[in-house]
């Protein structure tokens, strides 16, 4: 079982002095994740709403 | 213009019409993201071409950086001018603009301001990043942004004159370049001069003031030239 490399949370956040390089990358990954997943989900709701509205309108005619 | 409010045209105040013009242009730009992205991408790609052609020697790149950034920004602005009047010309909006009861001078200023916001501001914001990629000295960064802030409106206004002259022509592409590139030279010279002076450590505020003078001249006089040119082109 590999051992945890840092002795405290502060050390983990500090990343051996490289915190200002490592954490922004992981944050950008979070952005990448969100951009890949959130806009399509948001569009889905919008599209479904639009199509449903138009279909109901056509049904009522 | 009076489709954006409910009042009849003659009652609209000038500022509200200018505001409405700017809002309309922003909306159009939002619907055509290409108008924002394409000049910016051209700017970035063209800058990238330089290290690929002249090599990656840090000293050399940093020496040519101010000029490269300024020239490519200038070309990007010039290429973006096509979106200023062409769409309006093709759907007849330009004629409406000329017939509007509001003074054409201010409507043109509003239109050009919106175009500057959409096409030039992203370039200005990205310029320091690209300058850094070309290893430009940090003393040049702020002067670069300032010179572009003052210079790109002038480029847009002068470009507006060129566009107004050629909008009626079917294949005006490079003709526009031939017309306005000579006019761009003073802006280029003073713009790069500011950055170069800052890098060399000499005072650059004098050159910046000259740029500001060009800016003032352009803002006050070019709308006149543009309206004259538009009236010629529309006929």
């Amino acid at each position, binding site marked *: 079982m*590999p051992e945890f490399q840092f002795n405290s949370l502060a050390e983990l956040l500090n990343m051996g002095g490289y915190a200002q*390089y490592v954490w*922004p990358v992981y944050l950008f990954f979070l952005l*990448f994740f969100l951009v890949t997943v959130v806009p399509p*989900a948001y569009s889905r709701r919008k599209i479904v709403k639009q199509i*449903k509205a138009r279909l109901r309108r056509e*049904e009522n005619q | 213009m009076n489709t954006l409010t409910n009042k009849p045209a003659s009652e609209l105040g000038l500022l509200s019409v200018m505001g409405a013009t700017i809002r309309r242009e922003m909306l159009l730009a939002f619907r055509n993201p290409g108008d924002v992205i394409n000049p910016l991408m051209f700017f970035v790609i063209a800058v*990238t071409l330089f*290290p690929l052609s002249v090599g990656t020697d840090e000293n050399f790149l940093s020496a040519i950086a101010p000029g490269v950034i300024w020239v490519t920004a200038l070309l990007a602005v010039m290429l973006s001018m096509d979106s200023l009047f062409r769409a309006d010309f093709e759907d007849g909006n330009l004629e409406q603009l000329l017939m509007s009861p509001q003074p054409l001078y201010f409507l043109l200023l509003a239109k050009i301001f919106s175009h500057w916001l959409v096409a030039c501001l992203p370039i200005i914001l990205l310029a320091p990043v690209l300058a*850094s990629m070309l290893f430009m000295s940090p003393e040049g960064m702020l002067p670069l942004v300032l010179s572009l802030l003052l210079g790109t409106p002038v480029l847009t206004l002068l470009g507006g004159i060129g566009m107004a002259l050629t909008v009626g022509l079917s294949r005006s592409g490079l003709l526009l370049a031939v017309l306005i590139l000579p006019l761009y030279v003073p802006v280029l010279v003073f713009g790069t001069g500011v950055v170069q002076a800052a890098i060399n450590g000499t005072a650059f505020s004098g050159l910046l003031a000259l740029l500001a003078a060009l800016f003032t001249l352009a803002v006050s006089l070019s709308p006149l030239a543009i309206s004259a040119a538009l009236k010629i082109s529309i006929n």
Partner: protein
Amino acid sequence: MWQWLYKLGSPKWFYTIGNRVLPWLWSITGLLLVVGIIWGLGFSPPDYQMGDNYRIIYLHVPAAGLMKGSFYMMALCSAALLIWKIKMADIVAKAVAPIGAMATLLMLVSGSLWGIPTWGTWWIWDARLTSSLLQFFIFVGIIALRSAIESRDSAAKACAVLTLVGLVNIPIIEYSVEWWNTLHQGASDLSLRDSSANPPEIWIPAFFTGFGFIGLFFIGLILRSQNEILLRERRSQWVKDLLLGDNAKADTVSGIDTNA
């Protein structure tokens, strides 16, 4: 197996299969990414040269893989569209392009940030970064072309042509940039893969994040493709049934069908 691939060519089946696959994909991807990131950040030993900075590779390498993979998938779809006229291929290509572009950005950003302590500068005109930058431009170009052409079918074909042109060009571009780079060798080329005295356990988290990225890629692909399918097929009966029939409350994002 071929029959299954055949089915994917039908928008309705793609949508349905997508919905069935998504829940699994979410859980597996989530697991892989969480394990990979936590392991990479906390458990693998620090590099003897670069200290903890190297932990960036756990994101940089999969991002680079995604960049290449997306483009190959786009090229495959472009060929499918042009040769066999499979419309679904265009939908997938359209869905993948922004994912590929974003992955390239992640690769460039992570590469730059890795580079600051290593090379002393955030940008270096080395072969790999420069090629990736050009690849990013190509992605943006394809996306821009699609939004510039109004007719959907013309846009599809134009993007397909552009993508294939890009596919042929990319090895040429990379070769020329390599050649250019050897001419203008600036700082010593400290490649990210220089793992001289590093134990092999360093690569285990990369295994997890790598597959996690692939899962994420397919999640994005499926979600975006499904959106496009709904838009294009909105007049067809199966869409009407899906959205209106039985007042379907199928959760169309996570794929969990609360009706079934």
